[in-house]
């Protein structure tokens, strides 16, 4: 299989990640459940991973790194734990349903009001629109770092400055960028950062997290066993325990820890440059093919994603032909990005998303270009 669905998950993981998970499954106990070596080994590994992530994202403190099962859980925790009735939120057309659905839910259940910075037909936003949408009751700006459909990146430093100039909380969905684009919570003035471990970080599925800045507090959305403060009827106040109930995914976090080591050893810039080269090679190869429409802005910073359609063909049929006839894995349909598809005018057709990763090769890209050319003939 030629795997070009890395925006969904990086299927191939570095061998040290696999080894770390296997090792964890044969050695670790449950973190925070005693002081025997099995439990302490898990606690040490988990704390060490908090430290690595805090350094990776320039989060102010390791204990402000909260582990979750994925970005969606982190986003629900952040959005539902932050917003109160009457709050107003500014978001964008680029968002994934993992941001949109929690917001729509709070709009219906807590009278939270929403405004969206619109995207144009190339998926670009006008940054001036954030300032124009701010109202007295605006509480937060919530936006993705990059569209999962077009790959267009958002200048989160610029948005963070707008948010903080107006005293707003800035929440970033880094699902598509953590591990491949630089993220610096302090420099980019990010209050809440939600990430997943299984995409560009190349860790196991079931890992992710929420990093909190110094001056933001969230209500816990789940409560329960923590291994500490047993006789306290309420969830502990202190982070990270306040937002972590139940057994953590120690085995997965061990893999994520190894993935962070791998990225540091290879160099995030090296990874980004390779993915960018592969993405550009594919873009140059397909964009001039008659009948092929490519979406997104290729003149600005972006992730290694190319979304396209061939003539008026159903994107699902194209993706299925790529899989069945060429052994190429892509993602068709709506990509959980309804506002983005409406902005691009692809609501009915969907789009075929090709997303490239560290383990792809130029030879694979060339096979994919030939396949698109043949399907468009």
């Amino acid at each position, binding site marked *: 299989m030629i795997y070009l669905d890395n925006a969904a998950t990086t299927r191939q993981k570095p061998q040290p990640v696999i080894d770390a998970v296997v090792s964890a499954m044969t050695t670790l106990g449950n*973190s*925070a*459940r*005693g*002081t025997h070596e099995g439990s*302490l080994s898990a*606690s*040490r590994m*988990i*704390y*060490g991973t*908090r*430290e690595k992530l805090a350094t990776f994202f320039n989060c102010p403190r*390791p*204990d402000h790194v909260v582990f979750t099962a994925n970005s969606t859980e982190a986003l629900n925790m952040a959005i539902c734990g932050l917003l109160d009735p009457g709050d107003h939120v500014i978001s964008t057309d680029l968002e994934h349903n993992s941001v949109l659905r929690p917001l729509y839910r709070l709009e219906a259940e807590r009278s939270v009001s929403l405004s969206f910075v619109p995207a144009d037909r190339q998926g670009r936003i006008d940054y001036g629109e954030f300032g124009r949408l701010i109202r007295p009751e605006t509480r937060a700006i919530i936006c993705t770092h990059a569209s999962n459909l077009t790959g267009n990146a958002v200048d989160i430093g610029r948005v963070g400055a707008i948010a903080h100039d107006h005293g707003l909380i800035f929440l970033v969905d880094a699902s598509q960028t953590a591990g491949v684009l630089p993220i610096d919570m302090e420099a980019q003035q990010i209050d809440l950062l939600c990430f997943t471990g299984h995409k560009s970080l190349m860790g196991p599925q079931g890992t992710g997290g929420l990093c909190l800045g110094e001056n933001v507090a969230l209500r816990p959305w789940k409560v329960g066993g*923590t*291994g*500490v*403060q*047993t*006789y306290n009827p309420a969830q*502990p*106040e*202190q*982070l*990270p*325990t306040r937002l972590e109930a139940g057994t953590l995914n120690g085995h997965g976090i061990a893999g994520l820890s190894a993935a962070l080591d791998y990225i540091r050893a290879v160099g995030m810039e090296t990874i980004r440059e390779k993915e960018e080269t592969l993405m550009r090679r594919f873009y140059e190869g397909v964009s001039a093919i008659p009948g092929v429409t490519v979406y997104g802005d290729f003149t600005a910073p972006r992730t290694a994603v190319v979304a396209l359609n061939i003539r008026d063909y159903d994107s699902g049929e194209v993706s299925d032909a790529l899989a069945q006839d060429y052994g190429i894995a892509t993602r068709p349909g709506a990509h959980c990005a309804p506002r983005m598809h409406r902005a691009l005018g692809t609501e009915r057709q969907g789009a075929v998303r090709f997303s490239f990763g560290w383990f792809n090769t130029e030879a694979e890209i060339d096979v994919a270009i030939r396949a698109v050319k043949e399907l468009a003939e």
Partner: protein
Amino acid sequence: MRPKTLKLVVTFHTTAAAMAMEAFCKAQNLPGRLIPTPRELTADCGMAWCAPVDAGETLRALADAHHLEYALWQELLV
């Protein structure tokens, strides 16, 4: 049971804080280890840092200087 001796015992609100203390002490080559929190103390975190009493002053100064968070800091027969 083992005979009790006077030790410095430090408790924490979270496991993360206990891990931070252990990592810090190991890095600084300070003596001590994590033990289950003695029942005489309020059991915030299920584990506590146990160290020789004569290491207390050094440990306290370094903990304060590096903003290591703890719940209780006291000498106890354990």
